[in-house]
């Protein structure tokens, strides 16, 4: 979580890790989830946020959040 918090994020979804120099590009939903995580939102709140702002069912949104968190873990960002 420390690494996720230290990411430099821009509104277009470009993320830069100042510790390792790695950079990532996030789509709009990925950006919304990362921003939510940095604000301390829990899984359910992240899902609700996606349902509210994107055309997606709660079931799909929940699955997408799970997938995305796995991605973040694989990059050691969580």
């Amino acid at each position, binding site marked *: 979580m420390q690494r996720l918090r230290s990411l*430099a994020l821009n509104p277009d979804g470009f993320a830069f890790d*100042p*510790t390792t*120099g790695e*950079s990532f590009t996030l789509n709009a939903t990925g950006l919304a989830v990362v921003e939510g995580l940095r604000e301390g939102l829990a899984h359910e709140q992240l899902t609700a946020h996606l349902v509210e702002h994107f055309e997606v069912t709660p079931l799909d949104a929940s699955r997408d959040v799970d997938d995305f968190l796995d991605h973040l873990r694989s990059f050691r960002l969580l």
Partner: protein
Amino acid sequence: MKKQLTIGVSGINAVDNPGPGIGVARSLREAQDLDVRIIGLSYDAMEPGIYMDWVVDDAFLLPYPSAGHDAYRERLNYVQEKTGMDFIIPTLDTEMPFYMKYHRELAAQGIGTFVPTPEQYRLRGKDRLGELAKALDLSLPRTEVVSSLEDLERAVDDIGTPVMVKGAFYKAYKAYTGKEAVSHYNKLVAEWGYPILVQEMVKGDELNVVAVGNGEGSSLGRVGVKKMWITELGKIWTGVTIQHPAMMRATDRFMELYRWRGPMELECMVDGDTVYLVEINPRFPAWTYLSTGVGVNLPARMVRRALGLPDPQGASHDYDAGKLFVRYTYELVTDMERFQQMITTGERGDTP
């Protein structure tokens, strides 16, 4: 009125395997509180820096220090007589033994340097990486120091291919088979002598730090970089500044433990939380200008420190992560006369 400083800088071979000299010279020129005249110390009439007169004022050909210290000193004496050179920044590994040995004599004749002691230099040698990694709390890829073909074959068997085969001073090659390792070994021994290092290949990102030790246990500044794009020779072409805590700590620890005096480059491979020590170079790296570009002008800080000049206000150790370094190619067209001058007289410039 500021006194003009005449500073000799070597490594002005701005080629595909660039020497650090041009970045160092540009940094000195950009230090607003210093008035410098740059003397390029070169080894070949075709080193591009000789022709870059917006960076290098005068240039002189020197004999290789490995060809004999007397001839090298004699040539430096000539350069000083001709230009009034006050200070030299050697930037090539092969020059370090000479400058460490003769820094007092050079100082006595009015040429300042800021180089490590032979003991400091020895302790950071490639053959001491194990101790160094332990002291700096870094990991070390499995490494064997070899001085014979039998040792080499044994090391490759023990470590298992692929391996890196590294020269005593410069160059490192990947070897995917024992045969390839032998071929690299022979090439490196012929060019740079013994010992040769055989090292396990580790994966990860190449992260480096440039710093200047003040000789009293701390640094005059340090800047970290991640290599984003490298040439076939492994030289950085695009990079980005980083703030990697473990590497910064290792740099500080190195300064503290070894009381390093002069420039250095910490080279690491970083895989997740594991930081592997690759080596510590006893000189400025070729990407030194990046530090200047982000406000940490290490060559200028070193010269001020060595000559007892005051630091200008706002000489901060802080810099922003995320600043991009982009190297590029460029061409200039000039008269053949300069080349002829270098070939026939071994010098070119405006100094009368």
